[in-house]
């Protein structure tokens, strides 16, 4: 029988620097056939292994139409810091995809509100790219993205493309600006972008990803302006050891973040992220 815990080898095909601590890696399974059969939904994640160091859960940050798998990784600990040292042509272990993606099917025909904080934009980029190529399937697209400083933002070189997506709006904000950093956008938490927000609750879904405190806050605000619990979707983070609902580390009340999530309707997890 197949062993879900055993990684497969993958090759780093390309690397883009996002900011001082974050890079996007383009990956391909070493086994071409395996790669061919591989597909995913935006919002799903992979378990990446550096043997001898460990394994970490990382979202796929692009769409299957791109062919190769992209993942955008911030170096914070053992595995991610070591991944940062990888060069083109290096190999790592990979298994997945795991978890539920963003509710793209349900979102068809609706207005989409994306709210991302920091690294939270990584799993949402696939959604943006999907909407961009299937533009007519969706209503208005609004992206609100906040980071601690301009230097912490990711995908900045793609903002220009996103501005050009039809029927869309991109609003950027930062918590603060270190001296000498150019910045023309807003200053303030993501919720400070709410007054200017265009998306109304009717026929809309909100997809939210970022630090858990930020999501808690955002979800509450969205509720006050009329979004229903089942119109809000959050992508959660836990320190996963298996990715397949066995190791227990990502338990959230009766749910596993890895297999019942990481994307959850707010309704399902509301009592548990406060916090349990």
């Amino acid at each position, binding site marked *: 029988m197949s062993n879900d815990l055993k990684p497969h080898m993958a090759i780093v095909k390309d690397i883009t620097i996002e900011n001082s601590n974050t890079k996007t890696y383009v990956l391909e399974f070493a086994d071409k056939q395996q790669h061919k059969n591989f597909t995913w939904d935006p919002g799903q994640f992979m378990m990446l292994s550096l043997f001898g*160091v460990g394994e970490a859960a990382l979202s796929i940050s692009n769409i299957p139409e791109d062919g190769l798998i992209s993942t955008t990784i911030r170096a914070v600990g*053992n595995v991610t*810091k070591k991944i940062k040292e990888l060069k083109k042509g290096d190999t790592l272990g990979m298994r997945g995809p795991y978890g539920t993606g963003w509710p793209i099917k349900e979102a068809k025909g609706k207005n989409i509100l994306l709210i991302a904080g920091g690294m939270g934009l990584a799993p949402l980029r696939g959604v943006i790219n999907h909407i961009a190529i299937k533009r007519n399937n969706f209503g208005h697209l609004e992206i609100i993205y906040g980071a601690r400083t301009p230097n912490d933002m990711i995908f900045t070189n793609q903002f220009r493309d996103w501005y050009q997506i039809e029927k869309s709006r991109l609003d950027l904000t930062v918590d603060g600006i270190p001296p000498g950093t150019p910045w023309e956008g807003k200053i303030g938490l993501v919720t400070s972008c709410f007054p200017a927000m265009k998306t109304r609750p009717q026929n809309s879904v909100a997809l939210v990803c970022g630090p858990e405190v930020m999501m808690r806050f955002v979800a509450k605000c969205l509720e006050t302006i009329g979004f229903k619990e089942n119109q809000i979707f959050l992508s959660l983070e836990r320190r996963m050891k298996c990715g397949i609902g066995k190791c227990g580390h990502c338990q959230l009340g009766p749910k596993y973040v890895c297999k019942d999530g990481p994307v959850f309707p707010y309704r399902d997890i509301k009592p548990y992220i406060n916090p349990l």
Partner: protein
Amino acid sequence: MKKKPTIGIFKFTGCAGCQLELLHLEDVFINLLDIVDITYWVMVKRENTEGPWDISLVEGGISTPEEIEEIKEIRKKSKILVAFGDCAVNGCIPSIRNWIPQMEAEQCVYSDTSSIHSTKILGIGEYVKVDMVLKGCPPHRENIIEVIKSSLLNIRPRLRQHPVCMECKLKDNACLIISKNLPCMGPVTSAGCGAICPSLNRICEGCYGPMSNPNTSALADVFRKMGYSEEDIKRKFRKYAGMTPEFRKEAGD
């Protein structure tokens, strides 16, 4: 050939047991020499360099003004400074004397105390920044290897912070507290030893120091229920790690 990372091994106030534990790596000692270059180890070598070192393993606590200066020097010359064993971490057993007036301790041993200038004994972290902590009296060989390996790989070592009870149960031992009514320190002590003592029918004495976030007051209450006196409880916490903030409350002033 690529230059091997250099290691320095230093001794301050302690018993050399940690260095011995390193020497006791007999099976892999020669393999270790394949990957590192030990350039300072007075207990084993006559020719020692003045550094710098990629990894410095420092054994022993700091108990004289001279030692304070020396540890600062070593810090300057070390990339990764490891507090090697309980003495270097928090003073270990010799720190019991910190509760005795220094003069009284000196007079107990020396008739002429004018040439003795010891201070309180403290871990090296009191004076310099420490990069890694190898708990234990002595640290288990596996942990020593783990620290050397992860220093070489530049990753955080996997050292246990959870209680000895975890390793004790992984070994299928019946708990000594409940089965024999013995005052085991396992529930507040950091694992890493492999639960040697409870596996051999001896209570954990706490030689790895506090675990992460121990509930010392509840354990002290367990001991009280067993009939141990306040003095006994103080002695138990004032042994290997009495100086740590975690044990300080139960160790008394």
